[in-house]
C-alpha cells in the first residue's frame, strides 16, 4: 500500500493528472482545485468525481465538441483579423458560497465608491478639496473629459455596468487587480460558457446547486430601463456597437438579442433638439437609453475625435440636456485610470466610511520619488503597466523581459512617470487546465460583473474566469493567447431552491373547465397514434 493508493481518485486519474503536483509545486501559486497534498478541495468534490470517470479520449472529444459548438454559434474573438473560437477549458472554476459572499460585497462596495467618485470629480471635486487625492492626478488623466463636466446624467447612474478584475495571490487572498467601468466586456462568454458546460460536463452538475447566470440580460435591461430619462413611460433601449469589425461584436449581438432590443450603429442614430432618434422603417423612433459599447473618443465627433464615423454627432449634448441616458456614462475612464486605482481604498473610506472588503494589489506610484527610484532599481522583479491601458497592452513583466525591453521601459518611465504604475509580480492562483494529453496548472483571474440600477448593485454570481493557456504565463488576455473557464458559484445550501418550490402536479391543481362540452363527433382515437 503506497500513499497513492490511499488517495483513490488520484490513482484513477493518474494518466490525466500525472505530474500535476510537480507542476503545481513549480509555480508556488495557490491552486483552486487542490489543497497542498493533492487533495481536492470540498468545493471541487463533484468536479473531481466527474473527471475521475472520464478517460483522455472522452475529455478530448468533449473539448473538441465544445470548441466546435462555439465556432458554430459564432462565439469567437478577433485574433489578428481572424475569427477564432474563444478557448473554453473543460475544468470549471468553482467558488464556494462563503468566498463568493465576500467577493460580492467587495465588488458592490467598490462600484458604489467609484460611482460616488465620478459624481464628485465631474462636479465639485470635494475629494480634492479634502485632500484625499491630488487635483493634478484627476486632471491629467487621459479619460477625464471636461466635455461632460458639471451635469448629472439622466437617471443618476454613471457606472451601470462594471467588471472588477480580481485575482488570488499565493496566500489565497482575493485582491482587486483593476477596475473596468468604461466598457467592460466578456459577459457573453459567461453566458455561453455555462450553456456549453451544461452539455460538456453534465455529470458535475448533479448534486450541488450552481447559481444560474442566465438572468443577466434581464437584470441589465431592467437596470437600463430604470435609469431612463424621467418622464418616459416605456423607455426604448438600444445597444450601440461600433460595427461588425469590432472584436466584441459577438457580445453586442448576443446582449441585444437576449434583451430583445435593437443593436444600432452610429449611422442609425440622429440627434435633434437634444433628443436621440433611430431610423426605422416606421420613421424615426425616439431612443431613451443607449448601452454604449464604443469608446468615448469615438462617441461624438462634435466633442471628441472629429474624424470618428462610429458615433453620432450631438449625443453628448443630448445627454447633458437629459434627453438620453448613456450607459456607461461618458468620462468614466478617469475612475479606472490605474493611478486612481491606487487611491480606491481611500475613496471607499472617504465616500462610504467603510473599510475596503477586498484589498488592492500593492502599487507603486511612479510620480513619488522614492517609489520611482525603487522601481527603477528593481525593474526586473516588478510588473509595470501603463495607467490607461486595457487588454494587457503595453504591460511589462520584469522577470520575463529582456534587457533591451527593460532599458526601453526605463526611458519611457523616466519620460512620463504619470503614465505608469508598478506592482510586484503576483503568482495568480491556478486551476487544472487541459493541455495536450493531460491537465496542468494554469494561472487564472476573475472578472465579476456588476449591474447598478441606481438603488442596488447586483453582482452576477459567476463572472469571467480567464486562463493563461501557456504554462507559467501570467497574461490571461484572449488577445494574447488566453482562454476561459466557466465560473461556478455554489449556492449556500445545495438543496434549498430545488426543495422549497413544491412541484405542483396536474392532479393537485383545481381543474377549471373553459372549453365547451364536446360535441357529437365520434371519439375514435387510435391507440397506436397516441
Amino acid at each position, binding site marked *: 500500500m503506497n500513499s497513492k493508493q490511499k488517495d483513490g481518485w488520484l490513482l484513477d486519474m493518474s494518466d490525466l493528472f500525472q505530474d500535476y503536483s510537480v507542476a503545481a509545486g513549480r509555480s508556488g501559486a495557490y491552486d483552486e482545485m487542490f489543497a497542498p497534498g493533492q487533495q481536492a478541495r470540498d468545493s471541487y468534490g463533484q468536479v473531481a468525481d466527474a473527471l475521475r470517470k472520464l478517460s483522455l479520449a472522452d475529455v478530448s472529444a*468533449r473539448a473538441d*465538441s465544445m470548441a466546435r459548438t462555439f465556432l458554430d454559434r459564432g462565439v469567437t474573438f478577433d485574433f489578428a483579423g481572424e475569427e477564432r473560437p474563444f478557448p473554453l477549458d473543460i475544468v470549471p472554476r468553482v467558488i464556494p458560497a462563503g468566498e463568493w459572499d465576500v467577493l460580492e460585497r467587495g465588488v458592490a462596495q467598490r462600484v458604489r465608491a467609484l460611482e460616488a467618485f465620478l459624481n464628485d470629480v465631474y462636479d465639485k471635486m470635494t475629494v480634492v478639496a479634502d485632500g484625499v487625492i491630488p487635483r493634478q492626478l484627476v486632471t491629467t488623466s487621459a479619460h477625464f473629459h471636461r466635455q461632460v463636466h458639471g451635469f448629472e446624467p439622466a437617471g443618476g447612474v454613471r457606472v451601470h455596468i462594471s467588471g472588477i478584475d480580481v485575482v488570488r495571490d499565493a496566500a489565497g487572498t482575493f485582491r482587486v487587480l483593476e477596475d473596468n467601468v468604461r466598457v467592460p466586456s466578456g459577459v457573453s462568454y459567461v453566458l455561453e460558457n455555462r450553456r456549453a458546460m*451544461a*452539455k*460538456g460536463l*453534465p*455529470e458535475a*452538475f*448533479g*448534486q450541488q*446547486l*450552481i447559481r444560474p447566470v*442566465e438572468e443577466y440580460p*434581464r437584470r441589465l*435591461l*431592467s437596470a437600463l*430601463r430604470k435609469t431612463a430619462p424621467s418622464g418616459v413611460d416605456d423607455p426604448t433601449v438600444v445597444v450601440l456597437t461600433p460595427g461588425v469589425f469590432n472584436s466584441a461584436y459577438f457580445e453586442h449581438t448576443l446582449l441585444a*438579442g*437576449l*434583451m*430583445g*432590443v435593437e443593436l444600432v450603429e452610429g449611422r442609425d442614430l440622429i440627434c435633434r433638439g437634444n433628443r436621440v432618434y433611430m431610423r426605422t422603417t416606421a420613421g424615426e423612433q425616439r431612443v431613451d437609453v443607449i448601452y454604449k459599447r464604443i469608446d468615448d473618443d469615438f462617441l461624438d465627433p462634435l466633442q471628441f475625435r472629429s474624424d470618428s464615423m462610429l458615433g453620432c454627432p450631438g449625443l453628448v449634448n443630448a445627454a447633458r440636456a437629459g434627453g438620453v441616458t448613456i450607459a456607461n456614462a461618458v468620462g468614466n475612464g478617469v475612475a479606472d485610470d490605474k493611478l486612481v486605482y491606487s487611491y480606491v481604498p481611500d475613496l471607499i473610506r472617504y465616500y462610504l466610511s467603510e473599510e475596503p472588503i477586498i484589498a488592492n494589489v500593492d502599487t507603486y506610484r511612479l510620480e513619488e520619488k522614492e517609489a520611482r527610484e525603487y522601481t527603477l532599481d528593481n525593474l526586473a522583479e516588478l510588473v509595470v503597466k501603463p495607467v490607461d491601458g486595457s487588454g494587457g497592452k503595453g504591460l511589462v513583466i520584469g522577470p520575463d523581459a529582456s534587457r533591451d525591453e527593460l532599458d526601453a521601459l526605463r526611458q519611457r518611465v523616466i519620460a512620463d512617470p504619470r503614465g505608469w504604475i508598478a506592482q510586484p509580480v503576483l503568482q495568480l492562483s491556478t486551476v487544472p487546465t487541459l493541455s495536450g494529453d493531460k491537465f496542468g496548472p494554469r494561472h487564472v483571474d476573475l472578472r465579476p460583473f456588476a449591474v447598478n440600477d441606481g438603488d442596488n448593485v447586483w453582482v452576477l454570481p459567476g463572472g469571467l474566469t480567464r486562463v493563461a493557456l501557456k504554462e507559467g504565463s501570467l497574461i490571461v488576455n484572449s488577445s494574447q493567447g488566453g482562454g476561459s473557464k466557466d465560473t461556478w458559484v455554489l449556492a449556500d445550501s445545495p*438543496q434549498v*431552491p*430545488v426543495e422549497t*418550490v413544491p*412541484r*405542483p*402536479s*396536474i392532479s393537485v*391543481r*383545481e*381543474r*377549471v*373547465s*373553459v*372549453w*365547451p362540452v364536446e*360535441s357529437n*363527433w365520434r*371519439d*375514435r*382515437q*387510435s391507440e*397506436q*397514434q*397516441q
Partner: protein
Amino acid sequence: MLSRIAESLFWIGRYVERADGTARILDVHLERLNHLPMDERKSVAQELLAVMGARPQSEDFGLPELLHALAYDKTSATSIAGSLGAARENARRARETVSSGLWESLNTTYYGLSQHRKDVVGTYRFCNWTLERTAMVSGLADTTVSHDESWLFLVLGRSLERADMTARMLSTRDVLSAGMSWVNMLRCAGAYESFLRTRRAAFGDQHAAEFLLLDRLFPRSIVYALRDADECLAKLDPSAQRVGFINDARRIVGQARTFLEFHRTDDLMSELPEHMERVQKAVAQASDAISRKYFNQADELAWVGEVS
C-alpha cells in the same frame, strides 16, 4: 392519388415533426434533469415520459431508461429513432411518389441513427443531429416535391403533429416546474429570440405560454400550426365552400383553433393544462377523421413502425 400514398405522406409529415419535437423537448429537459438530485430524477423522468405519451416499462425507470425510451428505442413510435424509422418506412412504400431528394435524406437519416453514443453527452449531440436532419428533410420536401395534393398531405401531417408537440412542450412545464423556466420552454420551441423581440421587456410565464399557444405569426405556436392544418384541409376538400362542413377533420381543427384564438381569459396559466389536453385530443381526433375520410379504413395500416 392513391389513398395508400396519401396516408404514407401524411405520416411522413407527422413522424418527422415528431422526431423534431421530441429532440427539442429532450435536449432542453435533459439539461434540467441533470441538475436534479438523484432520487428526484426518477420520478421526473417518468412524468416526462408520460407527457410524451408513453408508460415506463419497468419499475426502475431512470435517466438511462428515459434516454432509451425517447431517443433510441426503434420499436416505439414515441422515440426519435422510432419516428424516423417509421418515416423512412413510409417513404419506402411511397418511393415512386416522393422525390429522390426526400427519400434519400430520410434513408440517410435512418442509417445515421445508430452512430451515436447513448450516454448523456452523446444524446445532446444526437438531439442536435436530429434537428439538423429533420430540417434537411423538411427543406428538401419543400423544394423538391410539387406543392400538389401529395404535398398537402405532408404538410397536414406536419402541422397537426406540430400543434401536438407544442402542446406537449407546454405540458412539460407541469412536470419540471422546479426550475423549468419560461426561458427553457421557449428555447425548446426555438422561439426564444422571436419571443424577446416581440415582447421586449415584458417577461414572464404567462407571456411565454401565450406566445407558444396563441401567437399568430410564430410557426411553432399552436394557433399557427392549427391554421396551417385548416388551410391544407380546405384545399384538399374544396367542396364545402359556402355553407357548412361535411368534413369532420375540418370541424375539429377549426373549432379548436378558433376557440383558442378567440378565447378570452384572465388566468391563462391555470387553464393551460386543459388547453393542452384538448389540443392533443383534437389532434388525435382530427387525425382519426382524416384517416376515415381519405385513407380508406384502418384495416390495413401502411404506417407500421419499425419492428426489430
